[in-house]
């Protein structure tokens, strides 16, 4: 239990350290830290970059693994228009976007 908390702190520290470097070097965060970039157009279109992979995909739920955690997209009639190594596009009626760590 103690070890885990320590580990988490270390992780946060390193995270903030890298964050500082990223800020100093004036690089965009998505490049420097590998953060996911979400571009949402209204409620019907979602463009996602910098992810690791799909964990689950049905027409009402898509779970995506990113470097910082999972992203849950719920909606209706969700459809992946294209899926490549660095970008994916989801269309349908998007109801929620959640972040899980």
């Amino acid at each position, binding site marked *: 239990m103690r070890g885990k908390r320590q580990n988490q702190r270390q992780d946060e520290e390193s995270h903030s350290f890298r964050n500082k470097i990223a800020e100093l070097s004036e690089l965009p965060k998505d490049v420097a830290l590998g953060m996911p970039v979400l571009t949402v157009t209204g409620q019907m279109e979602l463009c996602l970059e910098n992810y*690791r*992979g*799909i*964990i*689950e*995909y*049905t*027409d009402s739920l898509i779970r995506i693994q990113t470097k910082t955690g999972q992203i849950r997209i719920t909606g209706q009639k969700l*459809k*992946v*228009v*294209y*899926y*490549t*190594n660095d970008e994916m596009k989801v269309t349908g009626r998007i109801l929620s976007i959640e972040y899980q760590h």
Partner: protein
Amino acid sequence: MLLKIIRYIKGYIRIRITGYSTERFLNACSHKGIILWGLAPSGRAYEMNISIRGFRKLKPIIRKTGTKVSIVEKSGLPFFLHKYRKRKLFFAGALMAVSLVFLMSKYIWNINITGNLSYTDETLIRFLETCGVKNGMPVSEVDCARIVKDIRKEYDDIIWVSASIQGARLIIQIKENEDTIPEPGTEGEKEDSGKNPQENSAESSAEHPTDIVADRDCLITKLVPRSGIPLVQEGTEVKKGDVLVSGQVPVIDDAGTVIAYQYHESDADILGRTVLNYQDEMSLEYEEKEYFYQTKEQEPIEKVEYFLKIGKYRVGFGSTGNKYKDWEMYGFERQLCIGENFYLPISFGKKTVRPYRPNAGKYTEKEYQRMLSGKFQRYCKDLEKKGVEIIENNVKIYTGSQKAEAKGQLTVLMPVGTQAESQLMEIPVTEEQEETGE
């Protein structure tokens, strides 16, 4: 749209993935750089599109993830061609179409002429044909520089020509000389000089002086010379052929003898009073056509023939043969044309024959008077347009038993004189007499 076309040409497959860890399959695909699109879950399985090249790389992924792949649909050009590979004529046709387009583009399909104001397209195209330039000739044989030279040589008042080839079009641009518009009085002369271009050009005018010669008997009422020496005065009666203005201006020395002549193209405004005869007659009887009508409707009885002409051969549908004694025929013929002026030797048309019964009719007094005076008024208007002023008019209508006649004389003031080449006077001493004699 472009992406869709590229995908169609390259070909793609719609596959269905079933198995335990289908998401893993997706991630593996993206990791290997295989592009997937149109993903749609259907129950426990996924359907998606994948390129042919991507599909070939799938095998290790399938083995690793333990999924099953089944092909739902194949679409795109490679599959289309493969499906119809046995239809040899189809491919032959496609190949022929391409080669025909290629071959056809080696010939001139259209001659486009722009900038021509006084010459019609037809005139110029007919002239080009005499030089061997016509629709349907090979592009490689067109010599633009030669066309330009030929046109410049043939037409004097075309001052600039450009010929160029754009694809299968021959484009000829022309600039006409708009500055020197011939005067109404000298129009006839201009046409004459068109045949003899040297005569009219400015450089040679010094060597070929021109006189103004009376073109009819008249009494000169006004004479304003611009260049040349007037030989008559206002109030002189002249006969046809008399020289009114001479283009040879004598140079006189101190002793009063002529030592040389300056040559000019003479130019003057000359008005003369003269009498014009007017006569116009018309028959009082005319033929009235009575058409035959079908009993019930007001449709006239007529026979129609449609025809198609290809080269020398002619195919007709229907016939215009009939038993009536008198009939009139009218129709039209249209020639097929590609673009603006590439006429093919194919034409079609329609001929209609309408029989009638000729009835003799007679004009009433009012009718023939109106017709004759209308014609006379038109004649007067034409005269006025030419700059003729009518002073006196005693044209009257006389009626006979068979015909009516408008007859009389018009006294008018009109421009007189036409240009004519002067006879050169070389020897100064004898010339003086000759000139006064003329």
